[in-house]
């Protein structure tokens, strides 16, 4: 921008100079021409000829008995004399040389009085029209046009230069959320292509690493199902009631972990089709099932929101996401209240609230990491894998939405789900 302004100024000043020189040239040429005409014309023709002459702006000529330059006028500055080549007038061939030449300044005008051979004076008044580069209409238009063009050019150039960097930053951000994000295009200038290639290689390694680990997780979880089934059956033959109940409780917990791990590893949602789904009915179903399974008393759950609200979603996956949030609210907060708030613009907010202790502010994000559980939940007798929130977030992000946790001012936690309409 600075360069642009400087360029324009130089251009403007240049223009001023050029304009001055051009004007001076014309004025002096015409002045010389008039002098020659006066000199060559018979004395009685001089006046009409002078009247007919079409003089350029800044030049006035009169024929008088007396010189316009009277003694006492300040002499014109040498650069003006040079500019108008007054000396050329005076120093022409002897035939054309005036008998007398007087010069002086009156105001902003330079007066030149030339004496004809018969004693009359040709008085020339030369005024420099102050060049006003910033006022000319065409100049203004040109200036505006150039500014816009230059700005456009600069923007385009900087964008072009920074685009690969921005794309790289965006790709890194995407990779952070989703290891299966599409690779960067490896084209453009050589340095950019090299960087993109290096990035894609790195993303590939991370992806393989994550895939290996999730496959291992899936394999282990899968293989655990047969022994869990056997142990369940064996537990049925244990005579000691109390022992049997404990074994079954342990097994139920193990099964929940296996199921959560499988759900996390598999991303079941990926293969499920997206269909129109009544979100209000889904919310009530999740709450009622928590009551039916004995996780909560009927008074511990409530729903507030529209009777019906159709969204596009993958029903099984979305149900799992909501069930995880409701389960947390009940497990750590004693109650689960769901509110659905359709927002202007089609976005839907669904909030799962509880009356529990909430989560320390610095852990509100980290609990979304797989296997992350807070200290007191680990010590408490609440079974859990630390995958519930990670799974919920995966699913909601795959829906183009998200989930975030907030501590409520009055105590308790809110899980705020957003879904595109």
């Amino acid at each position: 921008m600075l360069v642009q302004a400087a360029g324009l100024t130089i251009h403007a000043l240049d223009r001023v100079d050029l304009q001055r020189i051009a004007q001076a040239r014309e004025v002096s040429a015409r002045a010389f021409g008039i002098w020659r005409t006066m000199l060559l014309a018979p004395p009685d023709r001089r006046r009409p000829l002078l009247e007919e002459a079409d003089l350029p702006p800044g030049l006035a000529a009169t024929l008088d008995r007396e010189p316009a330059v009277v003694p006492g006028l300040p002499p014109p500055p040498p650069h003006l004399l040079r500019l108008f080549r007054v000396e050329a007038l005076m120093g022409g061939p002897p035939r054309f040389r005036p008998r007398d030449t007087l010069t002086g300044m009156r105001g902003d005008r330079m007066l030149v009085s030339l004496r004809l051979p018969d004693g009359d004076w040709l008085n020339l008044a030369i005024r420099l029209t102050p060049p006003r580069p910033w006022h000319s209409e065409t100049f203004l238009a040109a200036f505006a046009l150039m500014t816009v063009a230059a700005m456009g050019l600069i923007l385009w150039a900087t964008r072009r230069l920074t685009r690969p960097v921005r794309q790289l930053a965006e790709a890194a951000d995407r990779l952070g959320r989703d290891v299966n994000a599409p690779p960067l295009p490896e084209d453009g200038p050589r340095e950019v292509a090299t960087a993109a290639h290096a990035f894609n290689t790195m993303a590939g390694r991370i992806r393989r690493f994550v895939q290996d680990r999730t496959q291992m997780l899936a394999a282990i979880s899968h293989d655990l199902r047969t022994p869990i089934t056997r142990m369940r059956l064996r537990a049925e033959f244990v005579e000691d009631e109390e022992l049997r109940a404990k074994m079954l409780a342990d097994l139920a917990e193990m099964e929940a972990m296996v199921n959560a791990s499988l759900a996390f590893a598999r991303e079941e949602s990926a293969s499920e089709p997206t269909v129109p789904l009544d979100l209000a009915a889904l919310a009530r179903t999740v709450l009622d099932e928590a009551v039916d399974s004995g996780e909560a008393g009927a008074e511990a759950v409530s729903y507030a929101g529209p009777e019906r609200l159709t969204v596009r979603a993958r029903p099984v996956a979305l149900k799992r996401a909501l069930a995880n949030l409701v389960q947390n609210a009940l497990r750590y907060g004693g109650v689960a209240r769901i509110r659905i708030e359709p927002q202007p613009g089609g976005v839907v907010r669904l909030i799962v609230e509880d009356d529990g202790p909430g989560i320390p502010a610095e852990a509100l994000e980290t609990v979304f990491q797989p296997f992350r559980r807070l200290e007191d939940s680990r010590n408490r007798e609440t079974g859990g894998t630390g995958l519930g929130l990670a799974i919920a977030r995966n699913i909601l992000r795959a829906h183009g939405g998200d989930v975030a946790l907030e501590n409520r001012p009055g105590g308790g936690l809110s899980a705020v789900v957003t879904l595109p309409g």
Partner: protein
Amino acid sequence: MEQTQHILIVDDDREIRDLLGRFLERQGFRVSLARDAREARRLWPLGHYHLIVLDLMLPGETGLDLARWLRGQSNVPIVMLTAMGEETDRIVGLELGADDYVPKPFNPRELLARIRAVLRRAGGEGGERAREPPARLIRFAGWTLEPARRRLTDPQGAEVPLTGGEYELLNVLVERPNRVLTRDMLMDLLHGRQAGPFDRAIDVAVSRLRRKLEDDGRNPSLIKTVRGGGYVLAATVERVS
């Protein structure tokens, strides 16, 4: 129980097979065991089975193939054992005409409850009419029920999720449209027991289901309340195979 009912268990895991057999025997069933589809075919003509418990993950010929073959032979009720997450197997199995499924790792008591419910349904209807071929879609009053996916769709085409209890209730209702079902009958069909004097479970389930079906609870037009304690589904039910 009128007579000892005979169950054929098909599972490739010896321990699970034996333990499940012992468990069901203790509950008063007669049990035969098969390790794979071949053995099941061999045993099939040798007994009169009331129900098959079939693991879908069999070596060699799959459980689905065996289910298809069994359907060709008879209407014997089939309860499938499926791996959690194997959605498609489960859906194909139910569409083939299996009666229910229990995901592995299963809870033996849950399996027992399902076995009893399936036997009850099969036995209860058996005398009156032959078992109908399984319906792929059941339509009533603009709504669509898809048994294989346990899915209800509203007249505008949006899926309306149901709890397990709501689904079971709706399923019982659409199987007997325009017939009065007392609370006791519903309790028996759904839970295999009589409704107690304080048992509100059925009423709760009905009022939840009405809300899902947009049936005004105070003036219901779809699931009507019958004086003297019962309900009736007032709708024409169309079954699409």
